[in-house]
């Protein structure tokens, strides 16, 4: 059940990805409309994070292509923002909240250039948007999980992009932060931005997202939440992995057979 859209802001075409010759995504093929708030849903190990990592060019793909704004990522980087999982960085790094948010401006600055006053003011504004202004001089090692996530979000806002990819922004954050984040994401969507979120709490899907992508090593469904997020598709995504698919995947890994070069 895949709803393809006209003039998509994101087009993933026949994407296959594997880690050390073990395939984790098979022939994923979908497109997203502009201005949607999309949830990528699926069980553990379904390849949700891998999907947005390969969209961001962080993992190599075996086959397929990805287009954003009808162009390859390298042509539109300034319009695209990525929020990695909170645990992917060392929060003991000796630096302040403000300096992290300022990193969001680096893409626009390019190499060699230092942030200007305007960049600093913009970063501060983003920090205000996530309700962390008074924490600006805090060392990041002193933040709680929810505050860390807000800082990452502020950094993404500072990129001033048109499409945002977020990897599990609700994991390990308190209820107040979760509410504040979803509020912010909805506001961003209403301003015309496109937001794609890796998410695994099924209960909140209908409340949060207007578009869903269900995956479990392969694409199960993609489309508007109302018509796509149904008992049948959920059953398919969560009713156990396709045994044959994961067995073949293990086999490929053991035998070290390259899956589809190039």
């Amino acid at each position, binding site marked *: 059940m895949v709803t393809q859209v006209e003039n998509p802001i994101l087009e993933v075409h026949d994407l296959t990805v594997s880690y050390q010759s073990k395939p984790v995504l098979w022939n994923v093929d979908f497109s997203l409309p502009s201005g949607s708030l999309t949830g990528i849903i699926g069980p553990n190990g379904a390849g949700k994070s891998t999907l947005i*990592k390969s969209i*961001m*060019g*962080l993992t190599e793909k075996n086959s397929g292509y990805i287009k954003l704004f009808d162009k390859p990522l*390298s042509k539109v*980087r300034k319009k*695209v*923002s*990525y929020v*990695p999982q909170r645990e*992917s*960085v*060392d929060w003991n*790094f*000796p*630096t*302040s909240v403000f*300096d*992290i948010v300022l*990193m969001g401006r*680096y*893409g626009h600055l390019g*190499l*060699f250039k*230092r*942030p200007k006053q305007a960049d600093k003011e913009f970063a501060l504004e983003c920090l205000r948007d996530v309700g962390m202004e008074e924490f600006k001089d805090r*060392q990041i*090692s002193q933040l709680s999980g929810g505050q860390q996530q807000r800082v990452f979000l502020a*950094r993404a806002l500072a*990129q001033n992009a048109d499409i945002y990819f977020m990897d599990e922004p609700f994991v390990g954050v308190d209820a107040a932060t979760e509410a504040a984040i979803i509020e912010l994401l909805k506001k961003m969507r209403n301003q015309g931005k496109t937001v794609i979120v890796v998410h695994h709490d099924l209960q909140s899907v209908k409340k949060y997202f207007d578009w869903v992508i269900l995956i479990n090593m392969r694409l199960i469904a993609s489309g508007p939440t109302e018509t796509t997020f149904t008992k049948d598709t959920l059953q398919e995504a969560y009713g156990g992995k396709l045994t044959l698919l994961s067995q073949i995947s293990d086999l490929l890994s053991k035998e070290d057979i390259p899956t589809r070069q190039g």
Partner: protein
Amino acid sequence: MEQLLHFFSFQDPIIRNVILGTILLSISSSLVGCFTFLRKRSLVGDAVAHAVLPGICVAFILHGEKNLWILMIGAFVAGWLSLIVIDLIANKSKIPEDSAIALVLSVFFGVGTLLLTHIQHNPSLSSNAAGLENFLFGNAIAINQQDLYAFGTIACILLATITILYKEFILVSFDVNFAKTIGFPVRVLELILTTLTVLAVVIGIQSVGVVLMSAMLITPAATARFWTQKLNVFILIATFLGVISSISGSFISYVTPSPTGPWIVMILSLIAIVSFLFAPDRGIISKLMKQNAFKQKVIDENILKALYQLGENEQKSDIQYSIKELLNKRPMDESVLSKGLYRLTKERFLIQENDTWQLTPLGKNKGQRITKIHRLWEVYLTKYVQIAPDHVHEDADSIEHILTPELEKKLEELLEYPSTDPHNTTIPYKK
């Protein structure tokens, strides 16, 4: 004193060369080491430092003379090669990266020692090889004017590169994936950082030697990390520590007389150990003191709680209790108890009369609060976490000492001020 004056007068050109040389070396290696440390690549720094040895030997065999620049090129190529091999092994085989690093380190260093022995035993080579063995453990006295120029040039290149690419290096060290997604040439930046590491090692081998060089890279950064959370301060402290150790190491080696490199590393290690023990917040002593203070707090609060609970069922409030009665209520080590009683009396939570103790209003308040939190937490655990009532006591025993007044208030509101705990004991609220 005379030696001190002579040393710091810079009259003696040898001393001057040694001091300037080691200072240039320590600035370069500490600066580069900060990034190696932040990127968690310390082990790689060690591997590179050892791996340059075969390069030096090969360069010498090919050239036939001990020319610093030629040897540096050899060192540079070998250092680079070692990194490529580490990457290849880690990415293309199933050997994990740390094993790959250990493998490359020992193989390269082994080959280097072999070549060095070959040179020393070969009469046509060994006549020109005087001082080559210095590259193992370093010999700062051998630094001459020309070496200084070379060191200075390399140090300037390092400084300039780090200044120009500061923001890029920090970003790559903190969040490499983010750097990739905004289109920074991460591979190139990493290559530059690694090149800087090799360069710093190359300056260092002459005075400190390949074996101790990794200490010059990592120890200043690792030590500085104990003292600050601020990035700029961290880098400044690391560089400062490097310079201080170089000067004092050179001085000690001049006075005693003994090799300079090991002394510099000794001083660095000494500062590291002192920091490890005494640094505020992150040091061992400070941590132990905090733990100790918490232990005392727990003991004191337990005594107050026991006294409060003893008096709970009595009509009169000013009853005095003996140590024996207290121990009956709450078994603990008697010497721990009497120390706690002494502390509490001094802080006016208790009044002592002969060998009995009585709660002051202040002490009674505190005992009541601890008892209340204990019982509230038991209610919370049975009601919200669904733990059986006979399993909640121990957990409450530790939570009662940690809960802040804000959380205490939240807990009260959440549970709507229950009157009894799961064991049907009354929960005391402040009147």
